[in-house]
């Protein structure tokens, strides 16, 4: 079964300069799971984007994927 975590990990890896430093963890709750994304410090801007546009795009895609799986997921980008 495909996890939301893999989706975010793949997207993050195509965006950053240091794909080896992409770390994604998934905290599964009863209804909502929280997906935590960590990247290298210099890549933080790349996953957030201008005015948060990249982060917003990732959340939109995550939202669509979650709807398909009939659950809710939240993306947290951690420093």
């Amino acid at each position: 079964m495909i996890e939301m975590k893999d989706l975010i990990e793949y997207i993050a890896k195509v965006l950053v300069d240091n794909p080896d430093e992409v770390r994604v963890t998934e905290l599964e709750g009863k209804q909502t799971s929280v997906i935590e994304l960590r990247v290298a410090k210099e890549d933080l801007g790349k996953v957030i984007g201008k005015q948060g546009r990249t982060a917003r795009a990732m959340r939109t895609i995550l939202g669509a994927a979650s709807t398909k799986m009939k659950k809710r997921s939240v993306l947290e980008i951690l420093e």
Partner: protein
Amino acid sequence: MSSIEIEAKTTEEAIKKACEHFHLTEGALDIEVLESSSTGIFGLVGNRKAKIRVTVKEDSAIAVAQETLRKIISLMSIDTKISAVRKGDDIVLNIEGNNTGILIGHKGRTLEALEFIVNKAVNRATETKVRVIVDTENYRKRKEESLKGLALKMGEQAKRTKKTVTIDSVNPHDRRIIHLALKGDSQIQTKSDGEGLFKKVHIIPNRKKTNKEESG
């Protein structure tokens, strides 16, 4: 197009390094072996490293775009096929399949997000400036027509009521369609207003015309 030379113990290792360097698969690269490796005599004398020259293929962008989108959608556990064509400088990716509604999303937001991410990935990986357009079930065309329809309707309303009509939060691409749809109409003008990506579009009836009509 960028080209680099890479040295490694073996040719295979050099190719692997090249793929990592460009974040691309071997298929997207042109590889020329300048010197093949040699272990020399008993691995002691004349030890030679492999040297290759690697160039990113002309149309690697199209391959990267297609592969990136395919991978993202498959990770969303949606089963589709993706066709890719070049239209001038643009790459058009079309998602084929039924039930792509979930990929379009509310007001096309998911489609936009996918397009945005694929664009970033392609321009990063190939260091080129191409625009990738993601479409499905002719959604772009339908959206454009419906936007044009809306613009014309709002334009008529502005002329009839002689009051400014405002369309809320429109992204740059859609805004352009609205401006273009009403450009030819001399009785109204259009203006964008607001901060950030999403701006309002005001459709303003021309004063002069209005005054003339009032006095006449």
